């Protein structure tokens, strides 16, 4: 007996092009930001997200209808999309922002994603994002998107099991005290944590195949979204250089030094 028609899953994976994690960051001379003339790559947590989407397809097979990756960024971000396509995504969407414009903020990104999801004719059942981007460490986009869409959210996921028949997902989350297991109804916003999986390499044959996969180009105005930042960065500086510590000979000396520094005893 054939099972009742299960709606096939459409997965959306937003990714971000960030400075490569191995590069040494430098504040630019104007102190307005970081020197971006360095190597960029896909945000490592987003790589985990793409990997999870591809693994879901490997596990659920035909139940996963499509995996789309989307990025909101400058023209060069299409290279990052190609890497995701080489890892196993089907198609890409590039919301292009001009090279010189400031990086979009989480709320702007969430609104753009909301607009894209509304546009998708087939709908979206699962959005898998990285838990945070390694350049701003904001960790807000997934949560904001879930709020805007009114969907369930499971963040900092370290294990995901999807049941397409029940339209539910069982997610293990990394929390301060340990692990928390929750059951969520689809449609669902997930954000990935480090222990979820180890991303695969984009192999050369797959990179060559990825060149033929479609990338749709959109602009913020096509989506009816304003990506102008609400926050203004006043100044960016490096953390103060560590000065050497001092060794003291006795407890009394330590107490005296603490007093000199203006630290008073409690109680």
């Amino acid at each position, binding site marked *: 007996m054939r099972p009742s028609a299960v709606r096939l899953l459409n997965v959306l994976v937003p990714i971000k092009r960030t400075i*490569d994690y*191995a*590069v*040494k960051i*430098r504040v630019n*001379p104007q102190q307005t930001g970081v*020197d971006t*003339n*360095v*190597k960029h*790559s896909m945000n490592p947590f987003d790589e985990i997200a793409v990997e999870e989407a591809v693994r879901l397809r490997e596990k659920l097979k035909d139940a996963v209808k499509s995996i789309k990756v989307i990025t909101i960024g400058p023209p060069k971000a299409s290279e990052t999309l190609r890497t995701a396509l080489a890892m196993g995504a089907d198609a890409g969407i590039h919301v292009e922002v001009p090279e010189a414009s400031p990086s979009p903020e989480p709320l702007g990104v969430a609104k753009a994603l909301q607009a894209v999801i509304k546009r998708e004719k087939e709908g979206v059942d699962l959005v898998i994002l990285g838990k945070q981007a390694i350049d701003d460490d904001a960790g807000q986009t997934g949560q904001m998107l879930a709020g805007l869409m009114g969907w369930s959210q499971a963040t900092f996921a370290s294990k995901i099991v999807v049941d397409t028949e029940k339209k539910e997902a069982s997610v293990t989350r990394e929390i301060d005290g340990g692990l928390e297991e929750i059951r969520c109804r689809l449609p669902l916003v997930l954000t990935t944590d480090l222990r979820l999986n*180890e*991303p*695969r*390499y984009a*192999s*050369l*044959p797959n*990179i*060559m195949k990825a060149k033929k996969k479609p990338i749709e180009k959109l602009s913020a105005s096509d989506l009816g979204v304003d990506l102008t930042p609400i926050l203004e960065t006043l100044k960016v500086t490096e953390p103060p250089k560590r000065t050497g510590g001092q060794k003291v000979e006795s407890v009394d000396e330590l107490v005296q030094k603490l007093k000199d520094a203006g630290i008073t005893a409690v109680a």
Partner: protein
Amino acid sequence: MIRARGHRALVRQIRALHSTARCRRELFDPSTVERASDEVDVCIVGGGPAGLSAAIRLKQLEQEKGNEVRVVVLEKGSEIGSHILSGAVVEPRALNELLPSWKDHPDNPLTQPALHDHMRFLTPNKSFWMPHPPQMSNKGNYITSLSRFTAWLGSIAEEMGVEVYPGFAGAGLVYGEDGKSVRGVTTNEVGLDRQGRMKDAFEPGMEFRAKVTLVAEGAHGSLTKQLTKKFDLRKDCDPQTYGIGLKEVWRVDPSQYRPGEVMHLMGYPLDNKTYGGAFVYHMADGLVTMGLVIGLDYPNPYLSPYSELQRMKHHPYFQTLLSGDATRIAYGARTLNEGGLQSIPKLSFPGGALIGCSAGFVNVPKIKGTHNAMKTGMLAAEAAYDAVAKTSHESEEAADMTKYEETFKNSWVYEELKEVRNLRPSFNTPLGVFGGVMYSGLDTYILKGRVPWTFRNKQKVTDASHTKRASEVQPIKYPPFQPPLSTDLLTSLALTGTNHAEDQPIHLRVTKDGKEDLEVRRKHVERNVGEFAGLLGRACPAGVYEYVEDEEGAKTAGWGGKTLVINSQNCIHCKLCDIKVPTQDINWTVPEGGGGPKYTIT
């Protein structure tokens, strides 16, 4: 029957529990692996100036003459330019031929012309004016970051339809059935663990079957080594000799910035027995690129190129240059060829050719090799284009690239190298650097190489064999580092952005005469620590090699209570170890692609 079913179910359960456990991983066997394969017309290993110039030239010929040619460039760096390090003052001679309208290109990085040339001699505390050979005049040349220049060439190549694949190293060669010709290249395997076993993410390297393979790996390339051995390409030439170039890029105080200034320095910190010198070039955007080149035939095993660079910065000349509001933004190192005309091997082999620094075309007195690398790339491309039309993948005869050798001999590259062929060898007499300077003065100002003699290295003395024993020399005492001007090695190393995935086979192999066992390791430690004061630990500009105290480990793999630790993750792909190790038992092989330094401004 029931028992068998039960047993199978049990095995399946156990397998499910241990699906990624290390004990279940299989060892990788290169002879039985199945590779994805693709056919191309020309496969170029190395996305540097030579490789990209060849690629661009091929596509130009395709547009001119009509025969389509599929060109693939493989580059082990994560991006084009990531593994490129040089001074650099580029002579645009080859670029003018390759892309005559390059000046109109909006992104071209040749924005800072070289304006003034200077040469000075440094003593520990002072500096004196020195005359410089006419070859070192830089009128018409440009000061630029070669990494940026190469990235720009890469974008042009891609626009023209070249398939550029960064992140994939040319790891092995595909030979014809008779083993006498090269039919292509294989890329590196990914997903092997430290012991060489296949992880879940394992993918075998891909095979590119190419009618013509152009090897453009830069100085002392790994495939070049294999080819040299297989086809005996060095039968009739002198051994290649090398220098190590280490450099830093600083954003200097505006008061110290003199755009277009080209300064070369000799003397301190190097002694009369050590060939080398320093350079300081003022690039565009307030940046100064400065560094030190040391000939790898240096005799004293205590010499540490990194420490020489650091102590040089405390000379009054550099103290002033780097005073005020100065920040260091880059560091890196790479070996370069110094052998000149006498060390050029046979350039072609059945099915391919060597271009650029893989063969070795650096004009040492000019301290320039980029224009020669680009030109040889272009010449090889022209020969390859014709060869591709005449060959097929299945034919018995591999592509014949001998035309390239002819065109090379008739080119301005050959002429240039012929003129300066005696200069570098003239430093290898008992008169040391002094003798070299004197002869070079004579030759460059008056003789201009028009002499019947050519200084040869008939005894085939290599850089490694020039090294004296520790007992025969005085240890060098380096001053402690004084931040912010000079720092320790690991702080500088962080600026290279180098990294390699940790769980992969170590790409630096300790191997001698085909053997790679503990005995080889023991002998290596015994000779290097016992006789040569642990040279690699002092010489490597990335802190890869350490001879550490390890009583237990020394019993099996060490000597004298010490073992060799190879921190291969730090490697910046300079190749110094392979060249200089006195026991000649380090084989540099390619790691997983995409690792290594992430240079952008060097």
